[in-house]
């Protein structure tokens, strides 16, 4: 398994736009698509086992939706969901290394630079740290 297209997916509008592009890219390269949901609770808050089980459920539900959306767009693309217990940017970087990824596709957060500055923008982190190309898909205009 190599040359995957890695897609970061969190259910947001941006990530759904990214999903449509990622399917097209996967089709063009005839590469498998891995849809990644990453989460990691703040370690300052102490233990998390049951909390993580909840998050994993949310993530897997979200990815189930993503996989069926991708299948609906193009049934010929192989799609695999991947829940990673790391912060979103870390999970994509990790997955891209593991899968020898061709490209990472993520949604942009649109015209909200302050939100990105406070929360830490995932595309921004990826652009600096990824070893593979990063494709940022703009969120659809409201």
């Amino acid at each position: 398994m190599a040359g995957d297209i890695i897609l970061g997916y969190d259910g947001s509008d941006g990530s759904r736009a990214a999903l449509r592009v990622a399917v097209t890219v996967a089709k063009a390269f005839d590469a498998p698509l891995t849809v990644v949901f990453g989460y990691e609770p703040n370690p300052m808050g102490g233990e998390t086992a049951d909390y993580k089980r909840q998050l994993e459920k949310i993530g897997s539900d979200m990815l189930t939706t993503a996989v069926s959306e991708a299948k609906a767009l193009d049934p010929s693309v192989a799609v695999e969901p991947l829940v990673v217990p790391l912060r979103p940017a870390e999970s994509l970087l990790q997955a891209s290394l593991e899968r020898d990824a061709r490209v990472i596709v993520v949604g942009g957060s649109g015209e909200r630079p302050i939100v990105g500055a406070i929360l830490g923008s995932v595309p921004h982190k990826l652009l600096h740290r990824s070893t593979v190309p990063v494709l940022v898909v703009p969120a659809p205009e409201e």
Partner: protein
Amino acid sequence: MTTTTADSGELGARPTGEAPGGKGLKSGALGLLSSLVIGVASTAPAYSLAASLGFVTLVAFKFAPAVMLVAFVPMLFIAAAYFYLNRADPDCGTTFTWVTRAIGPRTGWLSGWGILVTDLVVMPSLASIAGYYTFTLFDAKSLAGSTFWVTFVGVVWIVVMTAICYIGIELSARTQVLLLGAELVILTIFAVVALTKVYTQHIAHSIRPEWVWLDPFKMSISTLSVGMLTAVFIYWGWDTAVTVNEESRDAKRTPGVAALLSTLVLLAIYLIVSIAAQAFHGPDFLTNNSSDILNALGHDVLGSPWDKLLIIAVLTSASASTQTTILPAGRSALSMAVHKALPPRFGSIQPKFLSPGFSTLLFGLISVVWYVALTILSPGIVLANSILALGFGISFYYGMTGFACVVYYRRLLFKSLKNFLFIGLAPLLGGLMLAAMFVISIFYYSNPINSAKSGQAWFKFIQFNVHVLGVHLFVKQGVSPILVIGVGLLVIGFPIMLLWRVGHADFFRRSREAAASLHASAPPLTPGVLPVTD
């Protein structure tokens, strides 16, 4: 390294008992430094000293350093319980889940209530320190003296911190290291400068440190107990150093080493600062300025503008401490809901930020209400009432943790000397010490003369006068606010539990468990997950 792969059909279906993060992609394994930083930052040394040094001195006078030292003993013993129970079950319910497993659901529920109440009781002290020290940072003395404006900033502080926890804003690991490092360096500089001045200059009321300050046997049992009940607070949160890293199972030694190092750091900083503070102007100064101790001392020791560094350290420390109060409070409530001990709403997770949204916001809201109410009921002594009452909640649920460890591992206690010492004797002694402090302090505070404001009492219609085992328990004119806050809030958990039990008997039907091995993970307390999101 294997990868978490799953078909859409079987995602989330994990073999029971497997700890999350124990498989799949590297799950944020924390290094030694991160564990150390989390443990010490959660304990928040600068804020803890600012909040409690004056009150420990109020109780123990010049033996405050001894009390600070001895208070660590039960906390160390209980940390062993945290370490071993966390191995079996790293749920965020911590004491709630462990006590439920080991002792039973009713006691477990009350322990969970104890965690939530204790988190609530500390909030006004955090908020009032944040409000007061913010104004002193900008030399706004008149505002710092105004109950209204201090409370106003305190409320803003709670709101902002709740939002930070709700949205999930985190400082980078490097920033945390820098902030904590700065905090420790500033406290050390403060202590060294104070001691140097004591030995080289003529400072008003200064006294040179004496060894006797560290001798706990010079106090009565009652003074020592009440002092320790106040002082356990400074070590509260330290247990995260032993538990937080447990999930990176390959790094077996890290939690132990991190705990040991953070212990040394904390003990050293608390001792040197409390000795230096007492030496500088004598214990009377500490008791007279108990509510703004580091500000008052910082000004005289470091002088302007260097004293501002100390104030900044208190504020960053209070910020870390507020977060390590709100985050676990939300997660404890989430855990109780997941295990059907609270309504499912408390377990709901905000889908965008993935935080326990409802619980976190509700905790923030109740904290604001409680803080404002307490300020109205006891203006000027909110900090005193909160800090002096806090030890009851901490002792209760930490003590329960100690007992839960002994009971949960009851079949393994005599398998080896190591078992006997670490999962038997230490947690048991820790629990008994905390229980003794708890009971002795009830007698002490039952006399309103020992209230934060001497003679202040609430519920004045309550009057009784009894002798129990030769000890005089009397309530002449109502109950000290410290008892109402510290014990009253714990006690009302009992009727609330009975109310919840009506129609929700599932949780209360479970039977007790005993560990079969010291190394095995326990299966989840409740199988399955809640299907709820906000």
